[in-house]
């Protein structure tokens, strides 16, 4: 196409999907997923054609739509218990999210209307009278306990001590350097706990290590396994390649 089309701007993938659903005049509870997916992707392609950035959220939704589409084509797999439900519809979760977002959009419009009504109007600037209108707090401390106060105070004091140490020992390493170090720590090991990687590290180093691990996952060099929520995170290296320096 040699001409520019004015593309609509959407707040996010939900916004785009709702618009497609309303343009197609289809029932939100019975979305024709194949054709909506196609139109959704077309929109992304047209963004691409105009060299406009496509944010990650739009791509994740594209993947979700394609997954739902393929699951609707396949016979239901005999998998997890909750999915044995005969009424199980792969679209349901998405529809619920869409409805929720649609409702929020309606409230946002209501608020926008109210906000515009207040444009340029000012309320009284000072207290009206010397009466005691100070609020009555029915919940002055909430569920705060002495133990909380102790911990908060303790951590504030610790932060000060830590900060001083950081000032005296400046460490400056890049993600690339960290990546190289993590590779060295992992190579040849069957598995390494993420916690072990973090030992004796400053907060800044912890962040770098975390980023390095994410990067290694992206590069397909390691797998990360966590057996239960909040459990230990294990790193399983399977394709670490150390760059050999000449």
């Amino acid at each position: 196409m040699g001409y520019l089309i004015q593309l609509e701007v959407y707040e996010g993938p939900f916004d785009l999907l709702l618009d497609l659903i309303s343009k197609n005049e289809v029932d939100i509870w019975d979305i024709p997923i194949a054709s909506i997916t196609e139109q959704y992707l077309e929109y992304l392609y047209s963004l691409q054609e105009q060299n406009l950035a496509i944010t990650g959220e739009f791509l994740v939704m594209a993947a979700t739509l394609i997954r739902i589409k393929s699951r609707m084509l396949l016979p239901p797999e005999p998998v997890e218990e909750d999915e044995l439900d005969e009424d199980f519809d792969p679209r349901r979760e998405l529809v619920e999210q869409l409805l929720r977002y649609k409702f929020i959009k309606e409230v946002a419009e209501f608020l926008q209307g109210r906000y515009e009504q207040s444009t340029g109007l000012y309320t009284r600037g000072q207290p009206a009278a010397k009466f005691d209108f100070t609020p009555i707090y029915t919940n002055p401390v909430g569920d705060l306990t002495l133990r909380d106060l102790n911990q908060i105070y303790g951590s504030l004091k610790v932060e000060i001590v830590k900060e001083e140490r950081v000032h005296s020992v400046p460490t400056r390493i890049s993600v690339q350097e960290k990546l190289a170090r993590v590779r060295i720590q992992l190579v040849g090991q069957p598995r390494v706990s993420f916690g072990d990687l973090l030992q004796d590290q400053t907060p800044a180093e912890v962040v770098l290590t975390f980023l390095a691990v994410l990067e290694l996952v992206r590069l397909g060099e390691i797998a990360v396994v966590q057996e239960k929520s909040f459990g230990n995170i294990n790193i399983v290296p399977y394709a670490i390649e150390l760059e050999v320096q000449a």
Partner: protein
Amino acid sequence: MTLSEAEVIVEGLIFASEWPLSPQDIAEIIELDETTVESVLENIRKRYEFGALTIRNVGGAYQMVTKPELASWIEKLGRPVINAPLTVASTETLAIIAYEQPVTRAEIEQIRGVRSDSAVNSLLERELICELGRKAGPGRPILYGVTDKFFQHFGIRSLEELPLQGITK
């Protein structure tokens, strides 16, 4: 010019109240029926036609504010400008916070389907939302809620006045 006693009292109440007052609120305080209150309000509004102030109706409640044509003068006092427009991202974020509070940024982003840091920051700057504390659990994320300023700007007295959720959660 003589004014009815009720008219003077209602005028004083609307001026002094921190919140917009509904005819019910006023009727309760001055012990008159709502219809009488409405007609008293009408008289006050007429009397205010020529001055700097006006009694506006927000969602059925009354609030005393300056007339819009004075905005440029009042800005010179350095009061925060409430007329800068809110973006769609900000109103959506605000709607979620009003309904779901206390709510974390991650929860907001899940409902909107997109990152919302800049919307959250702009609402914090305008003091329409504030931090309520931190959620227990990993990362101890900050919980957000709406402020008194939110209620004042939007002329809402309580969260019950927001449109009702038309769907089951």
